[in-house]
């Protein structure tokens, strides 16, 4: 029983990170119909920023807000440099654009920094454990769950209570109708990228605290998990993305802890099989979304 609770907390910690990434992907998909495969580059950029700031003598206390800010700004810059030009283009064009950005950013880091991974120190409390009601938990998992919840509450508050959030949800449902109401497409799209970038930044902080390294492909795995989580949840559904992330994290942890040692390497494969199975019964994911208009 104790073990199960530990695994659930572990899974929630892992799933929380996926949820933040997936939510960012879902926000962008909602307003632009773009599955942003360049979303992982925000984590790559965050990783190198963290590395660079460590080199400059900063510590985690300052690096955390800096990384979140940098990720948010990078997201807006990528929109400005690349996605702005393909707004309203067929979905496939935007998809290819996102792949293009992914490879360009990766190549830039290989060319101008290094193809090798660079290490930086992880926070010293990262593997500490704490005993609650006789069960020991990783402090890190608890921190992730707490800050993920805080971030999600903040994000949903913005989406539900501010004019920006309400306009963004309106635009996600029917962009033309929103423009007819006076919603400015530039602001909404830029805002969506900023929000998505900040969410990626928060996720990146957790991801990097655990991995402690920066490399040109650092963003690849988190991006894939995020896309997967968004798909499971129902692409475009914001609540679904969070649900999908948490479910993915939980399933991974359950598999890793239950599979015989020789088969742990197959975890991802089994996860994909499970997802394929899910899509047979619910092709639209957990939560189906009303028809969304493109920009």
């Amino acid at each position, binding site marked *: 029983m104790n073990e199960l609770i530990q695994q659930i907390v572990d899974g929630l910690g892992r799933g929380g990170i996926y949820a933040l990434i997936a939510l960012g992907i879902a926000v962008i998909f909602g307003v632009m119909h773009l599955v942003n495969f360049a979303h992982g580059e925000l984590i790559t950029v965050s990783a190198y920023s963290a590395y660079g700031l460590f080199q400059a003598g900063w510590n985690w206390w300052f690096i955390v807000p800096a990384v979140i800010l940098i990720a948010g700004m990078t997201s807006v810059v990528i929109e400005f440099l690349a996605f702005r030009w393909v707004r309203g283009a067929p979905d496939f064009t935007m998809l290819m654009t996102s792949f293009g950005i992914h490879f360009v950013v990766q190549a830039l880091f290989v060319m101008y920094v290094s193809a090798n991974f660079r290490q930086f120190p992880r926070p010293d409390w990262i593997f500490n454990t704490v005993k609650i009601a006789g069960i020991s938990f990783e402090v890190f998992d608890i921190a992730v769950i707490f800050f993920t919840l805080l971030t999600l509450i903040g994000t949903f508050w913005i989406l539900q209570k501010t004019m920006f959030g309400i306009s963004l*949800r309106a635009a996600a449902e029917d962009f033309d109708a929103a*423009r007819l109401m006076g919603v400015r497409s530039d602001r909404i799209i830029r805002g969506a990228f900023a929000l998505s970038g900040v969410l990626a930044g928060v996720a990146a902080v957790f991801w990097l605290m655990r991995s402690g390294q920066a490399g040109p492909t650092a963003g690849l795995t988190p991006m894939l998990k995020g896309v997967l989580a968004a798909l499971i949840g129902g692409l475009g559904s914001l609540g679904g993305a969070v649900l999908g992330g948490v479910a993915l994290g939980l399933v991974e942890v359950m598999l890793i802890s239950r599979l015989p040692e020789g088969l742990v390497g197959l975890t991802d494969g089994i996860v994909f099989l499970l997802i394929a199975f899910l899509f047979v019964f619910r092709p639209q994911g957990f939560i189906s979304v009303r028809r969304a208009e493109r920009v």
Partner: protein
Amino acid sequence: MLEVESLTTRYGSISALRDVGLSVGSGEVVCLIGPNGAGKTTLLSTISGLLNPVSGSVKFENEEITSWAPDRILRSGLALVPEHRRIFGDLTVDENLLVGGVTISSGRRLELKEEIITLFPVLGEKLSTEAGYLSGGEAQQLAIGRALMSEPKILLMDEPALGLAPVLAEVVFELINQLRQNGQTLLVVEQNARRILEVADRGYVMRSGSIVISGDSNELISRDDLFETYIGKTDTTHE
């Protein structure tokens, strides 16, 4: 107030509008009638910026607004209640109204929302309902209320009574009458030609992308030949 001159809009190689001209004066209620496919919706979409014309001009309060973005046109004071309403079904009634007022100050937005609720009491009762669950009549009221939230100088309505039961359609016509009495300038596209002509000051008849006849409502309504030739039988029975 609104001047449209020789407007031509194409979908690919097909001209949906050919050399269309019309004008709406301040405080006027003008209707646009004609059979399906005549180009009425295309005309409203072009005026409000959803479509770009290949030639011609749209002037609003003596300013050239041709090919402006829809949000900029809205900000200049021209609002559209689009065909099929296009309310935001995932948003609550309250949120739909707020989006309608996205261009005005937050204080004014709340004031105006109260006014709209007074005008449409049923919306007030369902503020926290997701708009996707509204009935057709309620949704239409929301679409109109949402458009009024921007305090438009002119309101364009694309078939506001479409798909409504006759009793509810009548509510819409009453409402148009009421807006007219409040001095609201209106340009209304409507299938039910006779009924809208009873409410409007003037009318334009469109067919195959062009305006074929225009005149005062009284004059148009008395011309039986007009209904037979251009409008067909849809004028008395509403779909």
